[in-house]
């Protein structure tokens, strides 16, 4: 089928185009070293950095930024989405459920550029003004300037963006847990919360795993909102800075592609951009596969979700 050819072609073409970047850097591509922005600028100007080839690139800063935002958002969303799904399927009175259902679909449908706009024009200035103390600004002033476009803002908005997927999958799974299983627990005198916790959520565990994995893939690929809000600087927040690390800028992989899209005509830079795309594509593909696999386990209970 056409779709298969397409997927194969996609992987192959992107990998072929990405190959020069990988072959010049080897596994150090994924490692730390130097300032990633300087390296990208050198490629854009087609002037090799002294002592290195034109393709010299160390991606760890970008990978670290991606990891921070993605893992943070997924962890928060995991907790919130489970509570929201339980509320939606168990506790919400019908009137509230009739509101919450379209609300979640709306949150899934709001374009990410609008999330980004709100982030950059409202939330970031607010954080800049009220949350970042002067002492904090000074403490890291010699390496980076804090301006509210940071890991925390990005992570919180990203959480909101992946929440609908996780709520949807978890809630559908909870709704399809056989009523008899729950009634059995209730009949034994177990209260509703414990029943939900011990019977429903436990049955839905594979679905929750699938939801988490799929949401991770989405968070990984988010580009526009992160390009607008996360700070747009190839900087690796240092966790040893404590809370201050939350206010430091990052630039995840996908956002890097978007922000360098004008360099696609420059050979070295475009090979590097395609290398970043290949990394994203392979990780998203593996996550999709893992999510599909987790759902298969759920189907084994005879429940379709």
């Amino acid at each position, binding site marked *: 089928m056409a779709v298969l050819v397409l997927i194969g072609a996609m992987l192959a073409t992107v990998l072929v185009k990405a190959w020069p970047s990988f072959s010049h850097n080897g596994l150090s591509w994924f490692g730390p070293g130097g300032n990633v922005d300087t390296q990208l600028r050198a490629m854009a100007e087609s002037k090799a950095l002294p002592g290195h080839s034109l393709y010299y690139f160390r991606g760890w800063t970008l990978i670290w930024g991606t990891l921070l935002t993605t893992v943070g958002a997924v962890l928060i969303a995991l907790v919130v989405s489970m509570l929201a799904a339980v509320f939606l399927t168990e506790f919400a009175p019908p009137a509230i459920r009739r509101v919450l259902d379209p609300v979640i679909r709306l949150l899934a449908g709001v374009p990410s550029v609008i999330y980004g706009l709100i982030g950059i024009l409202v939330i970031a200035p607010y954080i800049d003004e009220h949350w970042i103390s002067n002492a904090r600004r000074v403490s890291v002033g010699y390496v980076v300037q804090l301006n509210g476009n940071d890991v925390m803002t990005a992570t919180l908005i990203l959480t909101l963006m992946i929440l609908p997927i996780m709520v949807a999958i978890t809630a*559908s799974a909870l709704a399809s847990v056989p009523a008899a299983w729950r009634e059995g627990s209730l009949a034994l005198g177990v209260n509703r919360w414990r029943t939900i916790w011990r019977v429903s959520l436990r049955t839905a565990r594979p679905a929750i795993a699938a939801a988490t994995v799929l949401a991770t893939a*989405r968070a990984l690929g*988010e580009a526009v909102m992160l390009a607008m809000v996360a700070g747009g600087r190839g900087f690796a927040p240092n966790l040893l800075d404590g809370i201050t690390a939350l206010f430091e800028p990052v630039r995840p992989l996908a956002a890097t592609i978007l922000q360098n899209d004008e360099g696609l005509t420059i050979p070295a830079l475009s090979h590097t*951009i395609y290398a970043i*795309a290949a990394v994203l594509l392979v990780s998203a593909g593996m996550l999709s596969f893992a999510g599909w696999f987790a759902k298969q386990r759920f189907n084994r209970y005879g429940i379709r979700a």
Partner: protein
Amino acid sequence: MAATELAPAPPAGSVIARAPRDRTASWPLIDRVGYWLCWAVGIGLCLVALAIVAFMAVKGLSYLSLGQLVHSPAPSVVQSQSGGFLDPIEGTLIVAALGTSIAAPLGVAIAVWLSEYRRPSWLARTVESAIEIVAGAPSVVLALFGLLIFAQSFLGFLSQRAATGVVNGRSFFAAGAVMALLALPLIVASTREGLAQLPDRLREASYALGRTRATTIRRILLSAVRPDIATGTALGMGRIIGDTAIIKILLGAGLTLQPVGQTPVAGLLRGTGPTLTTYIYENSPAGEGLAPQKAYAAAFVLLLIVLGLNGIVTWLTSRGGQSGGGGLNRAFRLIPFMPNPSG
């Protein structure tokens, strides 16, 4: 407790027996904390959505004027002289129309094949996971792939060819084709969902009347799942309209429509131009132009379109009691295929 009102034998897994009111007084403290956290999260989500819509409405209405809808953008640093966003609106409509008109027939065909034929089965399983991969692939990556494909010289007639013979691969054609990939998983999932819910007796009755399988599909099944196809298409269109990354990479960041050559329609499609999403991006502090007022106004228009599509979906899916398990809207199941994050 919950068992006080055991409704007359609810169908397995669809209706949840519910007590008139949850009496939590007898629960241990930690259970009650969980219960109230659930309420807090549920109400909180409603408030967040309300805040987004209300904020965009207030900002949008205060900066939007009718003139902006009929004037082209003009390059100017002064916000009162930088024109309106007629071109971005046209661009959005062109891309949405192109994308859905490619994705809809293809998606329906794939869905029908997957649920009605499925042979050979290994191919069906592979296609299924391939569609999941497309649904999960970041749209930046899809865009880069599209750029590679449409920059091939034999596809030069779809975009611009420089005097040196180099094809730049950026055009509405390219953007529409890649956008179709975004909408495809939604249309496939929605149509399959619909086909799976049709009772077998419908097919059997048709076979008994001597119709072939192909006729049955064309005449009976496809007309029965028309609302589902429409749902998928509307959701897919919403995703196309909301995507920025593909537009930015495949159409560039120009402010006005730039047709290629003199041919009226084909020239436009071969050319490049902005859409509402790139217009917002470029006018926000993240882009070049510092025109937040224009960005707010355009974002409000974009949000209105998305809300409208959402309303259509709600209307389509709430008719005829088509509801998923647990009283959730059927479109709810499609959310996993409509990942807004990624573009």
